[in-house]
């Protein structure tokens, strides 16, 4: 089993990264702020305008450490990539499959089925943990939503066309986000959820979800590139210039497990507060720098949690799930598996 190594997130604006022997060194204001041995690193993610020395970039490329640059909101900007990427035969197989509905529909079906099933698991866990605090009508709404997501998952698993599957995906999202606010049982007034908004996030919960999705999207993209797949050519998300469609596909089944559940926990435990967000003049909401640090620490902790992989039957860190799914997709494309087994969380 592949090991989960550390990812270093550099949030301070004036940081400079360099290589010293076999170590990464982070400097700010001319002083050394941290160092880590390169062999223990999986990725380095820089927010803001952090700089890095060419020697460090070369070392990261050679050791397959993802060195990437994101905006403070987590939008992908650039990545340092070495020569050792992938297999053209695998990418060709990916393109052929993406062009052939009879072979790509089963992949999409699996992804959306798993997404609905995992949304249901999030609800079930909320019910199990806090169900006794719910009023009867609220509890009833929860149980209805849970049952509907179960039905949608089963019907999706038998759907024949992409359009029908997309319809189920939309229905599942309505049901799930319809009760999302009710899962924030311990949230103060400022941290309520008012329906999904993305461009821009219009409440703090959406701002938190968007940031977590950006982190997840980044990890999915790295996982796909790591196995040599083209992150731009997807199955559920079709080609659009500049869009990492396959990374978005891979994210779908993992959003409830890795991001949504973490957002709920952070808010309900009071780990993140209203003061960790800023509202701009137009009403768009984003995390403060301190808020981002809190989320990144919680994100790293969550990635270390162990779970049992449903298809491989082995125990794995949550942070490896995207890598394992990317590997399973590549094994399907190369013919080892007769389908893509999506990640179903229990």
């Amino acid at each position, binding site marked *: 089993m592949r090991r989960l190594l550390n990812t270093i997130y550099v949030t301070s604006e004036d940081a400079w990264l360099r290589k010293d022997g076999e170590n990464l060194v982070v400097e700010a204001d001319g002083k050394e702020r941290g160092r880590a041995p390169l062999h223990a690193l999986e990725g380095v993610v820089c927010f803001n305008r952090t700089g890095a020395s060419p020697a460090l970039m070369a070392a990261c490329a050679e050791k397959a450490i993802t060195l990437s640059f994101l905006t403070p909101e987590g939008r992908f900007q650039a990545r340092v990539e070495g020569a050792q990427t992938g*297999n053209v035969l695998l990418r060709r197989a990916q393109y052929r499959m993406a062009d052939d509905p009879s072979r790509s529909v089963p992949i999409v079906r699996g992804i959306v089925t798993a997404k609905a099933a995992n949304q249901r698991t999030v609800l079930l866990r909320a019910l199990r943990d806090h169900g006794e605090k719910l009023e009867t009508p609220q509890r009833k709404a929860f149980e209805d939503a849970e049952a509907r997501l179960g039905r949608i998952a089963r019907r999706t*698993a038998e759907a024949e066309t992409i359009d029908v599957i997309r319809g189920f995906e939309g229905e599942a999202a309505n049901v799930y986000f319809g009760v999302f606010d009710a899962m924030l049982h311990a949230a103060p007034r400022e941290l309520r959820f008012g329906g999904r908004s993305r461009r821009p996030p219009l409440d703090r919960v959406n701002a938190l979800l968007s940031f977590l999705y950006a982190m997840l999207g980044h990890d999915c993209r790295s996982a796909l590139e790591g196995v*040599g797949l083209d992150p731009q050519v997807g199955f559920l998300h079709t080609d659009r210039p500049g869009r990492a469609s396959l990374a978005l596909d891979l994210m779908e089944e993992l959003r409830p497990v890795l991001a949504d559940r973490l957002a709920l926990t952070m808010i309900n435990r009071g780990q993140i507060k209203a003061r960790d967000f800023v509202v701009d003049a137009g009403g768009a909401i984003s995390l403060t720098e301190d808020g981002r640090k809190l989320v990144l620490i919680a994100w790293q902790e969550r990635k270390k949690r162990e779970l049992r992989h449903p298809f491989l039957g082995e125990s794995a860190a949550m942070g490896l799930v995207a890598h394992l799914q990317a590997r399973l997709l590549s094994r399907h494309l190369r*013919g*080892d598996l007769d389908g893509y087994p999506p990640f179903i969380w229990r």
Partner: protein
Amino acid sequence: MLPPPDQHSEDTLTPISALQHHLFCPRQCALIHVERIWSEDSATAQGRLLHERVDGGKPDRREGIKIVRGMVLRSLTLKLSGKADVVEFHGQQPYPVEYKRGRPKRHRADEVQLCAQALCLEEMFGLTVPEGALFYGETRKRTVVSIDQELRRLTLDVIADCRTMIGEGRTPPPRRTPACRRCSLVGECCPDRLEKPPSVSKWLLRQLVD
């Protein structure tokens, strides 16, 4: 010594290292040379460091023997290319020496690698290479290997199998064997799950039944 090959034949040379991987496990060979997957563990890291030290050493002379390190080898008839850790020249006679981290093994992968180097040297220098040696780090002993007919035949067979597999871009299905414990790619290969995988669509439906 090295005649200039045409572009095409240079592109289709098989790396000598692939032969060893192929004898260890054809799927491992395909994961590395077809799928371009590489995963370093402590064994491969130690091996890499050992070779960096050996290859990086300066050429020298000892008791009338000239020692060349990290020598590039090629055979256009066998379509092979690679690098020898050390080639000693006993007078005009080349004598390949390959350094290994571990100890002598039951399978003949190390001998095949050495034999492939000898075959390249024969083509490059136009003479017969009857002998070479393997040096094992764990035992710190040099084992003399006779490049005999049997080893030559085995090596030619492996070269043919390996070339065909890489040429077709094929990855054989996994097989769980005792060797998997020593394979740094076992996590990428998933022999336990993929040796006899279930039908994925049936598996998915089973996941939805509580």
